[in-house]
């Protein structure tokens, strides 16, 4: 029998859980947790899509389409969001962990466990943002947890706005969490870890900002 990583406790008590994680030889129930979180992610994206979040593109067709066709559009749009939710979860769980695995000498499964906690944080952010979006009309670029508002208020260039709005308190939390865990489970020096983490985060932030700025969904 292996050790089942308590993900929620892992968020609250990174110190205890990270030391526990280091000691364990094998982990159990990991795939179940992965599957559960992927489903949770699909659900969160589905709920978000149900309220139409992100469907500004679809709203353009409101005038051209009949009411039923318009709802159908949003339905398929929502289906696309759910699929993205699944893909997003898979990307967050496996890609960074694969990247860390190449750089630090840690078992891949342990890295996945850490990324599961990261995904949990990211999904929490998305859930919290749904009511704020609906009541205050604040979209992704203007999330109150991000630097996007400051960037917009200072009239920064568009790309910088996208980049800064991708940096949120929750993203910083994930970075801190990853650092805390990696510091314990790996033998690497803190400076190296910070460098690696900042690098990966910056990479993803820039990629997402670029994707946002070219508005991929409009190309289709």
């Amino acid at each position, binding site marked *: 029998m292996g050790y089942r990583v308590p993900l929620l406790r892992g968020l609250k008590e990174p110190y205890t859980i990270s030391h526990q994680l280091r000691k364990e030889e094998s982990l159990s129930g990991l795939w179940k947790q992965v599957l559960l979180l992927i489903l949770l992610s699909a659900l969160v994206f589905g709920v978000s899509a149900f309220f*139409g979040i992100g469907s500004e*593109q679809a*709203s353009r067709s*409101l005038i051209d389409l009949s009411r039923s066709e318009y709802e159908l559009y*949003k*339905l398929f749009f929502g289906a*696309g969001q759910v699929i993205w939710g699944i893909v997003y979860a898979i990307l967050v769980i496996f890609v960074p962990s694969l990247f860390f695995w190449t750089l630090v000498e840690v078992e891949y499964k342990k890295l996945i466990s850490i990324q599961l906690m990261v995904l949990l944080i990211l999904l929490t952010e998305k859930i919290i943002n749904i009511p704020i979006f609906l009541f205050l009309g604040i979209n*992704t670029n203007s999330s109150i947890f991000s630097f996007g508002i400051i960037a917009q208020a200072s009239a920064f260039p568009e790309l910088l706005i996208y980049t800064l709005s991708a940096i949120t*308190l929750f993203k910083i939390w994930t970075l801190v969490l990853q650092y805390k865990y990696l510091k314990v489970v790996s033998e690497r020096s803190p400076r190296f870890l910070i460098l690696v983490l900042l690098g990966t985060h910056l990479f993803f932030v820039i990629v997402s900002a670029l994707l946002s700025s070219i508005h991929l969904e409009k190309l289709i």
Partner: protein
Amino acid sequence: MTWKARLLAGAVVLFLACNITLLFLKNEKINRTYHVDEWTSVKKQDLLETMPARGVLAPKEEQHFYYENSTGTFKGFLVEKGDEVQQGTGLFEYSPDDITLTKEEFQIEKDKLENEQENLESHISDLESMQRTLSSAPVEEDQPNPNVYMIQTLERDIYEKELQISRIDSEIEKYEDLIESADESLLNLTVESEIDGTVKSIKHDLTNPVVTVISNEQKVTGVFSEQEIKKAAEGMKVFITPEGSNKKINGTIEKILNHPTSVPHAETESRYEFSIAIDESNELESFHGEHVDVRIVTNEVMDTLTVPAEAVKKAKKGKYTYVIQTNGRVERKKIETGIKINQTQEVKEGVENGELILLERPPFLKSDFPFITSMEPKKLKKKDLKELRKKDMLKYTSRGFLSR
């Protein structure tokens, strides 16, 4: 909490406070997306301002028939109270006996005169032959004809008789006329109804009017209060709904009496009668005296643009509504409003027919921001799902997939 945790919590709160402050202060610069709950389209329709009233169905016409002694003796009624009558149905008749009798008298009188005339004529011819005999008699020369005087006398007699004949002629003519009129009276012995309707009353004691017929066609009558009469006018369109039904019948105010129903009194409110003509095309199968609800169209705006009253938002500088544009954005539009009836507001200027407008006021009033709407699975139709092309399904799904 450790001092580290406190510092962290403080920093987070500060950061959020800073963001929220900026959100309100730099409202114009912050991108927003409105979540739209409800929208509707600008409609073109007729706006009717109506005033309710109560009325009662009454016969459109009431026709009275009088018994006249001069026409003849009364014979009897042909109908009973409550009978249905058509135009031309006999109601009552006069007895023909009197008239036949008079007619016979006239005939005798006429015959007598004709005899007299004949006698006179034969007398004339006698006189003429006498005259001829006298004038042909032999006359001695240088002697005055003794017959000349006789002839002259005869001539005067003949003239007198001829005068008498012509007098008798005119007498005969008079009697012929009288006989003719008696014949006519014989034909007009029956009094007929001039309208389709029902016999309302019959007076067996022959007090006039002996028969009253009410028409099947109906009108609506009612009374206005002093306030109501000021708003109403003759010729106004009216919708009539019999109580307990949902039929809507058109009518027009035909007459408003401008004197009150009772003697005006300072302490009581005066009431004024009115009547409504029902449009001919409408068949009302209701009883006389049945109550109806009446809506009088006091103001009518034809073919005007309307929006629900809740879509109109008041601001300091005027009235606004929020319009969904083709580019998927919401625009604030200034509008000029007209009359408001119930929850429908006429818009004179600012919007176009068919434009989509929001029913709510988006938070942080601003124009030209994108919007989103929640899914409403109830509005989906299976038919459209079947008709949707695979290509579009893929397109919509991938847009959803790629959207952030």
